[in-house]
């Protein structure tokens, strides 16, 4: 055991913040709709799944149609894919509200709830139907998305932002397979990981291959000392190639995580601004307090409700876009993996105080922290793989001790 704030701690922290921001994005949609219509939109997590699959399909299609290489996607691909996912999810959510929920606006709440479950099942099962013959352009790009898991192409290179280059130069070939010689002296620290990035010129341009250094000697390593790289390549192949020797930090900050947290943060700050600082946001909060009295102010209530659904769906689409960037293996739309993710985001909304926007953000991060820190620090004593138990135990405790959620206040009206 190291100190409390060791690499494990910070790794867990980074994972919690990244996944927490995704939970928060989804939880916001649950909480906004609840705030206005006082019912749980069970189809919301399926809109998130739709976002993930739309992101996958758009990425694969764009890569196929533009002939880009799957490895080096240009930076502008991400924003386009995000935009498409938002439009698809926004339109879907608009239609769900317009055609499934609005006709039931004055019906008992239970009817709407059952309808929401129905819409959820419809989306799940429709989305994983086998592709319609006319729409199956390639093996991977299809609509509906089909019942098989897929792998998201790399939208962002897997870059560690805080790694440091400790040497560059030209490689010499060693005597045995896997052996290379460096042309300069380097200092190798104990307990650290080192990586050798080797550039080979090909007809299509330079290609970088990554090798790990297997147990390099610790301390001052003289030029010409043979080092063993993994995977093992014949020395002749490595001879004369340009190399970059990289020291991998104990706590790695990856571009993927920074991009996820950054995108989510921008969206959440934008949402808070919209809801708490604009005229439309005031109208949204007014509608959530009283639909009738908001209409008396001249607020077009139907527009505000549609807008709220679309806004929630756009945030869910963003979460759906970001999730497979971090976890590229995409389960089929009706998989219970998605159900569990949606459920945790819902728990986040409830724990934060359903109907409360800041509560959803707080709940999202809190649930992820409990999930990841529980798994990291309690698995040795209690057992591993129990992260979901920690999450739902938290839910039960919060409901017992603060039924309105952490930031939810039971509304009291003065007479």
């Amino acid at each position, binding site marked *: 055991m190291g100190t409390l704030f060791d690499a494990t701690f910070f790794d867990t922290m980074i994972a919690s913040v990244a996944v927490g921001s995704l939970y928060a994005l989804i939880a916001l949609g649950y909480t906004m709709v609840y705030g206005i219509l006082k019912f749980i939109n069970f189809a919301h997590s399926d809109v998130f799944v739709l976002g993930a699959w739309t992101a996958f399909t758009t990425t694969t299609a764009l890569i196929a149609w533009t002939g880009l290489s799957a490895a080096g996607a240009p930076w502008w691909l991400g924003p386009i894919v995000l935009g498409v996912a938002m439009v698809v999810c926004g339109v879907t959510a608009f239609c769900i509200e317009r055609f499934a929920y609005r006709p039931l606006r004055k019906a008992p709440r239970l009817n709407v709830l059952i309808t929401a479950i129905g819409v959820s099942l419809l989306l799940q099962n429709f989305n994983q139907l086998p592709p319609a013959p006319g729409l199956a352009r390639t093996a991977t790009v299809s609509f509906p998305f089909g019942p098989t898991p897929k792998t998201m192409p790399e939208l962002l290179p897997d870059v560690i932002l805080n790694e440091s280059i400790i040497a560059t130069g030209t490689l010499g070939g060693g005597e045995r397979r896997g052996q290379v010689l460096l042309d300069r002296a380097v200092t190798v620290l104990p307990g650290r990981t080192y990586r050798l990035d080797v550039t080979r010129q090909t007809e299509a341009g330079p290609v970088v291959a990554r090798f790990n250094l297997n147990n390099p000697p610790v301390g001052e390593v003289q030029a010409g000392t043979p080092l063993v790289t993994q995977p093992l390549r014949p020395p002749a192949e490595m001879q004369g190639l340009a190399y970059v020797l990289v020291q991998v930090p104990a706590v790695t900050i990856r571009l993927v995580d920074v991009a996820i947290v950054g995108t989510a943060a921008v969206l959440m700050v934008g949402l808070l601004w919209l809801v708490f600082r604009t005229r439309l946001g005031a109208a949204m909060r007014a509608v959530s307090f009283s639909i009738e009295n*908001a209409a008396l102010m*001249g607020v077009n209530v139907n527009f505000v409700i549609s807008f709220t659904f679309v806004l929630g769906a756009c945030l869910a689409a963003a979460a759906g876009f970001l999730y497979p960037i971090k976890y590229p293996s995409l389960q089929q739309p009706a998989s219970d993996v998605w159900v569990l993710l949606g459920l945790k985001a819902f728990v986040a909304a409830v724990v934060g105080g359903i109907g409360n926007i800041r509560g959803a953000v707080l709940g999202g991060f809190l649930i992820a922290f409990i999930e990841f820190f529980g798994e990291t620090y309690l698995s040795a004593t209690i057992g591993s793989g129990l992260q979901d138990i920690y999450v739902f135990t938290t839910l039960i405790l919060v409901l017992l001790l603060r039924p309105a959620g952490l930031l939810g206040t039971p509304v009291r009206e003065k007479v």
Partner: protein
Amino acid sequence: MALLEIDNLSVHYGAIHAIKSVSVRVEQGQIVTLIGSNGAGKTTTLRAVSGMVRPTGGRVLYQGRPLAGLPAHKIVRMGISQAPEGRGVFANLTVRENLGLGAYIRKDHAAVAQDMDKALSIFPRLRERLGQMAGTLSGGEQQMLAIARALLARPRLLLLDEPSLGLAPQMVQLIFRIIREINQSGTTILLVEQNAHMALQVAHHAVVLEVGQSTLSGPAADLAASDEVRKAYLGHG
């Protein structure tokens, strides 16, 4: 032509026939009061004018045009604004945001700022509480907020639903004084009240509602003097 003409209006809530035959004329520049006991259909009449319920019979003409079927948010834009029964302030919004929503339909921001200032000088108590959540105001302050908010729409016709309900006598006096001032500055008012005594004092014209029907109407002073009204609504035997 009357500013508002409610003619033989009928409203159902499901199977309940809430108002059967209500007729009210509101002339430009007047205060018209609608008095009647609890459940007579006063609120329902205002709700029908504002577009919150759909009439099942009769008609509502505003400046000669029928309002039937228009959604509430469009009726506000035509110049009718309502301070609803029970005040209907947004407890989860600040006083300033509530006032801002009163002016939701307006784009003339400079004039809105002026009107806001004017409303706050009518109700100085609100000025001190601009940043406070409306839910934390006292009942009287909430009523002031509801009236100020309705005024910020710059209505031609202001509908007030029991503005004196639940207020201390002094506050009631204040509210009625302000109602008169608002009218004197040019706003036509349709005032619903159970406090017939006060309502008949400020109004030009009055209509009595009994179980969903308008039974009496005439100049407020005449009604205040009539035996029927004195017996039923003014507590004189």
